[in-house]
């Protein structure tokens, strides 16, 4: 906390409280804007963390950075709203922010030499030479396995190339936009990166090294091959066929071929493959293996343990005439020989359909022997590339672990043979669940959610959070993925769908909610449930790198504002800070104007037929501009959307207001004066702070007062209505009956309520503009109807009857409201 900020706060409080109100309001608006941004970012991040969106790690980093900035602003604005109240908050934010940055930090690419390694040295440095070159180097060092001369341009050389040409920022910028599955986007972005790489220059120290090394491995103008050897390639993950190789390259073109191999790192399918395996750009830095071209007579592959014959207990040799490319890309069907495994391999003629394209039997046996020694050296079955040149010399060009065939996961859109009850709902959280339909419109109902229910709710309100573990699924009329509830549901794998239901679901009816496709089915559809159990939405390798950062960013711990840990110190994640700031800022606005109405001096008196003394302070666009100069304004001057809606209900012509009774704070009146105050004294009046989409109203009706605080605008994420009602002139029991009446009505409308003594607090949030406006109109009507109600309530039965009557009347009125709009 800066002393100057504090001093400014205090001096404003004393000398210019109106300015302070405006500043508080501005801070509040900014906080809400960033709240919406932060919640969207949290949802985006969750999609990446939980593997719903497969994206580059750079994207997570970028989103986390943006989240941090938004949350920082929120914390700053909350301090601005109340400098003494949340002094420690920025400190705790900075702490969490640091932990996030620490957990998200990516390995810095190494850019120092060596840039060139001999094939023999490559064996010992897989982190420099990449998998392919390192494996081949190992084979060369074994002695006895015929490997051509060759050298490696290291992964550090690639990093240096990027650095030297100043490409890091450009590449990162592209990577963070990439999402696997969006083919057009990926094609555009990878092309952009490839162009950047190809336009670069090979740094002189690398170029010189390459030229010299080339002259060492070939004679004169012999052709060479430049092959990809990315880090992590040909290890546990094969990357088979993902990266390009350059064949038949004249020595003078070696640098261009090298650049093309580097650019090949960024082809769409290699990027998708890398991301789907949870690897970063740096994890797969591109080394290049340079070998002389073998003038091949035959070429092909050997599987040291061929799954095709003898239940995998044989060696399979596949081959074609000429270069082996046609074989690996599958365009030519190869000849094939099967040999027995063991020290003395022999050809098994039963399983050798076509020897066309294969070398002599003698060569086949030699190949099989090499395959067995390589298998022994590398400790597992090998997938080996070989070539025989025109002079009959045999070469091993590559060896890597043989990939066991993985069963492909069923595609999610496979038909399951059951007709959906409803399709195309918005997906707020994926997963699938089946359970009995349970309607939970009110707090009371929410508290009684049965185990395993599919909950149907009007909004995704935070009150649901407490019971989320009981739910098999959630269907909400409104709400979005960017809500606290959806976030927690995603974490727990509870499916959440949003949208209007076409028909009626019976309470107790069994339904299946499929969060991945946005579909509801009648009954329990076992096929969908098992698909989700067997095929969790994302592979572990994608989620693994984010394990540490999830609890620091998107996880919500502060679910209960009443709990002891709802403090800055209790914040453990960015999401906690977001929740804390939002909750507290609304609370700050709620207690905006004190009873004395300080800061309201610039306000205008509302001239109305209703016997109310009300002052309005325009915070911006709350009144039509024509009314600027007037000290008196009329309800027609109100431009503020929430104020207009509330006033519409409050001024309902069906409510009979006593003519002579001016509504003001009689309690205060009793206290301060024996009638010396005039009835329109500001001390006793009602106040409204309004702007285009904001309303803060403190209204005094005789012995009770109400506060309404609301945002109502096009962005439903920001909308809310908070309402407090307190006190009354009648006996305590009658006051409680009225309170009960109000509580029941508000709960019917989807408010969450809490009562303490003769005070009730009600809250509603994140509804659409139309819904929020309708609720405000009802609330206004409720305030008008109830202002003297305690005088006539005397039994529970009467309360119940009054609730029904009120709802009916209010609905009738609504029809007109809709027509007029």
């Amino acid at each position, binding site marked *: 906390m800066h002393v100057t900020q504090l001093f400014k706060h205090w001096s404003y409080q004393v000398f210019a409280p109106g300015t302070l109100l405006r500043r508080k309001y501005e801070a509040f608006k900014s906080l809400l804007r960033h709240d919406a941004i932060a919640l969207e970012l949290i949802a985006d991040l969750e999609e990446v963390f939980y593997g719903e969106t497969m994206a580059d790690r750079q994207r997570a980093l970028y989103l986390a950075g943006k989240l941090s900035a938004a949350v920082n602003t929120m914390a700053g604005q909350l301090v601005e709203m109340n400098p003494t109240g949340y002094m*420690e908050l920025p*400190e705790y934010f900075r*702490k969490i922010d*640091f932990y996030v940055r*620490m957990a998200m*930090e990516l390995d810095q690419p190494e850019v120092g030499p060596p840039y060139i390694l001999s094939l023999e040295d490559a064996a010992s440095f897989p982190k420099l030479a990449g998998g392919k070159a390192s494996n081949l180097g190992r084979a060369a060092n074994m002695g006895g396995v015929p490997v051509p001369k060759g050298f490696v341009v290291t992964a550090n050389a690639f990093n240096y190339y990027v650095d030297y040409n100043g490409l890091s920022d450009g590449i990162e910028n592209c990577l963070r936009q990439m999402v696997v599955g969006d083919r057009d986007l990926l094609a555009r972005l990878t092309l952009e990166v490839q162009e950047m790489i190809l336009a670069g220059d090979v740094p002189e120290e690398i170029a010189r090294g390459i030229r010299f090394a080339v002259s060492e491995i070939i004679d004169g103008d012999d052709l060479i091959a430049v092959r990809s050897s990315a880090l992590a390639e040909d290890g546990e993950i094969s990357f088979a066929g993902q990266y390009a190789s350059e064949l038949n390259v004249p020595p003078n073109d070696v640098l261009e071929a090298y650049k093309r191999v580097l650019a090949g790192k960024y082809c769409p399918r290699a990027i998708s493959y890398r991301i789907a395996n949870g690897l970063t750009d740096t994890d797969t830095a591109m080394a290049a293996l340079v070998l002389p071209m073998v003038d091949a007579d035959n070429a092909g592959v050997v599987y040291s343990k061929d799954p095709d014959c003898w239940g995998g207990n044989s060696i399979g040799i596949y081959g074609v005439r000429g270069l082996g490319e046609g074989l690996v890309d599958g365009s030519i069907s190869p000849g094939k020989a099967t040999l027995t495994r063991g020290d003395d391999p022999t050809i098994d003629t039963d399983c050798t359909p076509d020897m066309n394209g294969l070398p002599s039997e003698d060569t086949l046996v030699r190949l099989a022997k090499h395959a067995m020694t390589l298998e022994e050296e590398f400790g597992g079955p090998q997938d080996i590339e070989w070539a025989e040149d025109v002079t009959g010399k045999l070469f091993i060009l590559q060896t890597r672990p043989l990939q066991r065939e993985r069963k492909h996961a069923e595609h999610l859109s496979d038909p399951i043979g059951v007709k959906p009850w409803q399709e195309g709902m918005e997906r707020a959280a994926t997963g699938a669940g089946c359970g009995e339909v349970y309607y939970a419109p009110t707090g009371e109902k929410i508290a009684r959610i049965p185990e395993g229910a599919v909950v149907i709710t009007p909004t995704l309100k935070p009150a649901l959070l407490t019971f989320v573990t009981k739910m098999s699924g959630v269907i909400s009329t409104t709400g979005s993925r960017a809500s606290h509830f959806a976030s927690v549901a995603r974490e727990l794998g509870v499916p959440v769908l949003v949208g209007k239901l076409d028909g009626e679901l019976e309470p107790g009816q069994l339904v299946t909610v499929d969060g991945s496709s946005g579909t509801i089915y009648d009954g329990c559809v076992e096929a969908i449930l098992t698909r989700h159990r067997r095929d969790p939405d994302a592979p572990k390798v994608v989620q693994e790198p984010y394990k540490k950062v999830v609890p620091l960013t998107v996880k919500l711990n502060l679910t209960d504002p009443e709990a002891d840990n709802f403090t800055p*110190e209790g914040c453990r994640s960015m999401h906690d800070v977001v929740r804390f700031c939002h909750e507290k800022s609304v609370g700050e606005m709620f207690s905006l104007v004190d009873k004395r109405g300080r800061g309201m001096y610039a306000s205008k008196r509302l001239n109305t037929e209703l016997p109310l003394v009300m002052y309005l302070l325009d915070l911006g666009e709350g009144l039509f501009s024509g009314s600027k100069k007037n000290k008196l304004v009329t309800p027609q001057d109100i431009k503020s959307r929430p104020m207009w809606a509330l006033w519409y209900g409050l001024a309902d012509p069906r409510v009979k207001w006593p003519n002579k009774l001016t509504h003001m704070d009689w309690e205060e009146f009793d206290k301060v004066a024996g009638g010396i105050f005039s009835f329109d004294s500001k001390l006793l009046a009602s106040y409204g702070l309004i702007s285009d989409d904001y309303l803060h109203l403190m209204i005094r009706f005789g012995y009770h007062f109400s506060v309404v605080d609301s945002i109502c605008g096009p962005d439903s994420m920001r909308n809310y209505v908070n309402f407090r009602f307190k006190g009354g002139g009648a006996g305590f029991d009658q006051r409680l009956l009225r309170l009960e009446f109000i509580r029941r009505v508000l709960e019917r409308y989807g408010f969450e309520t809490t009562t303490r003594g003769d005070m009730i607090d009600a809250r509603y949030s994140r509804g659409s503009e139309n819904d929020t406006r309708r609720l405000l109109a009802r609330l206004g009507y409720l305030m008008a109807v109830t202002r003297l109600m305690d005088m006539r309530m005397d039994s529970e039965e009467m309360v119940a009857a009054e609730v029904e009557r009120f709802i009916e009347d209010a609905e009738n009125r609504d029809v007109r409201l809709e027509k007029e709009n």
Partner: protein
Amino acid sequence: MANIIVVDDISDAGMLVKRILERKGHSVNAFTEEEDALNYTRSNSVDLAILDIKLKKMTGVEVLEELKKITPDLKAIMLTGYPTLETAREALRLGAQEYCVKPINKDELESKVAEVLGE
């Protein structure tokens, strides 16, 4: 229970950590002077060091390096009010298990210590 040393140039901060961890049954010695902590480690078997980064003569990272020379399998938690990615990287490279940022409350401290000691 573990033998723990705490090095913080502010005596009160060290004492606070000491009191919290002693209540968990650990034996804890708090030092404000780096030299004293190193001398203590030379003649006693220390399981865990909790080190502030800003110390009087050395940095906590340097103290960590020295401590590791004396007791290579000593575990360490860095605890600082002025975190930087550079010191975090360096401390983790030198073998610190955790890098924590002040303000730290009782729960967080207890759970980090338990985690590092493998309890």
